[in-house]
């Protein structure tokens, strides 16, 4: 579907009176369904705010968002979310953490009691897909940082969301773990084809994972540039060191530096 996400001239000001921080100003972006889009930008440019507006967690001050043909006016239950902090529940095993959305989101929640076996098998499959076979019954503190983040991503995907919002999910990991997770992410995306919006400040990550990269300006944020990544899939890590990728990273970098100076 074309323009699955259609954000038009959105502005957002925190605080009720007119002197709150203006986080977004006339931000416009479109994402087709099944597309993997990365949003990059200088720190504090309103990337996380952008996510909250698209998912309906924060109503915009001006402008509007249309997702799947409908105006967003309340939190969108078709989204899955993962953040830099894995936010797993420490009293639940990895498997039970992954199954949390199924206990809440409809239509799964009402079928959970009868179909528990089926849902559990689904969660196990998903964990196996990201390489966590055998860790299903471990508690979060028994898992490494990378494993916790994999679990968190599985939790974001378990209810088959058509829109996956990732807010710097690999930001707190070391480089080797991060690259491993890029591969796992690519595999998940190719297997299930959700629409993904990935917010990141890692330009190599954006080039490796995304079909299209949007660059945001400094606060108040808006989209100032857009690049399509023409790399065949499945992509290999070595591709990020090829001239094409390096050139693109450099170009994105220049845009961001310019945006920082302008502010």
């Amino acid at each position, binding site marked *: 579907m074309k323009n699955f996400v259609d954000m038009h001239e959105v502005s957002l000001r925190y605080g009720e009176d007119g002197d709150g921080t203006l986080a977004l100003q006339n931000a416009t972006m479109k994402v087709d369904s099944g597309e993997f889009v990365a949003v990059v930008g200088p720190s504090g440019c309103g990337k996380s705010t952008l996510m*909250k507006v698209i*998912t*309906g*967690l924060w109503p915009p001050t001006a402008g509007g968002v249309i997702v799947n043909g409908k105006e967003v006016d309340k*939190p*969108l*239950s078709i*989204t*899955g*979310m993962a*953040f830099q*902090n894995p*936010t797993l*529940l*420490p*009293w*639940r095993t990895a498997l*039970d953490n992954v199954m*949390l*959305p199924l*206990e*809440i*989101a*409809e239509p799964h929640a009402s079928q959970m009691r009868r179909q528990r076996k089926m849902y559990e098998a689904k969660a196990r499959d998903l964990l196996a897909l990201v390489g966590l076979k055998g860790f299903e019954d471990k*508690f979060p*503190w028994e898992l490494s940082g990378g494993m916790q983040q994999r679990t968190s991503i599985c*939790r*974001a995907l378990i*209810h088959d969301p058509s829109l996956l919002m990732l807010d710097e999910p690999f930001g707190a990991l070391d480089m080797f773990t991060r690259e491993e997770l890029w591969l796992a992410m690519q595999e998940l995306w190719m297997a299930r084809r959700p629409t993904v919006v990935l917010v990141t400040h890692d330009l190599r990550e954006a080039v490796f994972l995304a079909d299209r990269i949007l660059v945001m300006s400094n606060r108040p944020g808006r989209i100032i540039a857009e690049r399509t990544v023409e790399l065949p899939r499945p992509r290999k890590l070595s591709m990020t060191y090829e001239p094409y990728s390096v050139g693109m990273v450099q170009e994105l970098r220049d845009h961001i530096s310019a945006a920082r100076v302008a502010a």
Partner: protein
Amino acid sequence: MSEITLPTAPKVRRRKFTRNKAFRRVLPWLVVAGIFLVWQVLVVALRIEPFVLPSPTSIFAAGWQWHTIILQNAWQTLFTTTIGFFFAIIIGVLAGVAIGSSSLIYDGFYPALVGFNTIPKVAVVPILIIWFGVGSVPAIITAFLLAFFPILVNVATGIATVEPELQDVLRALGASKWQTIRKVGLPRAMPYFFASLKVAITVAFVGSIIAETVGSNAGIGNFMLVASSRFEVPLAFAGLLVTGAMGIAMYAIAGAIEARMTGWATRTGGGGT
């Protein structure tokens, strides 16, 4: 004349006696026994009069002589404490959930609650006696009044400090306020809750005894009051010892329940869902 010092064979390091687990376990008893011993020696050596400070042996003797009456009164205190504590758990958890999950309720009620909590409860007891008469009820209510506040504050804290990202995840899934509380808030508040039980049970106990001392015809507080008014000082001390022992026992029970229920918080595995 250079002398080469040969490396001596490494000594077999003996485990320090003070690290011995069994020793650690009996240590508290040794400390208590030591205190009694020093106390006994001082009383005998300095010839302190029994009505000023009775010796431990005379306290134990008096305690044994009157043990049926002491046990009856201790039972009464245990009864009022337990009932008051039980209500404190119910009201404390309900109010804690309400205050922790709604900033509106928090802003509205919390200052009044803090104000109420700073009133010394001993000043409330006479009023309770006017309302309910001398008996178990004022003791139960005093125990409740002292115990519910720590429970409330801890439950509210546990629920109010759910990570914002997690709240976003749940809201986007369409979770109702109640679902968020049930799936995340309450389990998250459990370690806070069980930690507060240890505080609450001891202050409930203090509450009961205060009420019994100010106005009652039963309970260990009343027993001590009667004993000291008759100048039976060893007996009053026996009451004190029983009080202390009961307090320790209740604290230990609350601690054991805590360790069992919230193993995930101390990372010893298991516990809760």
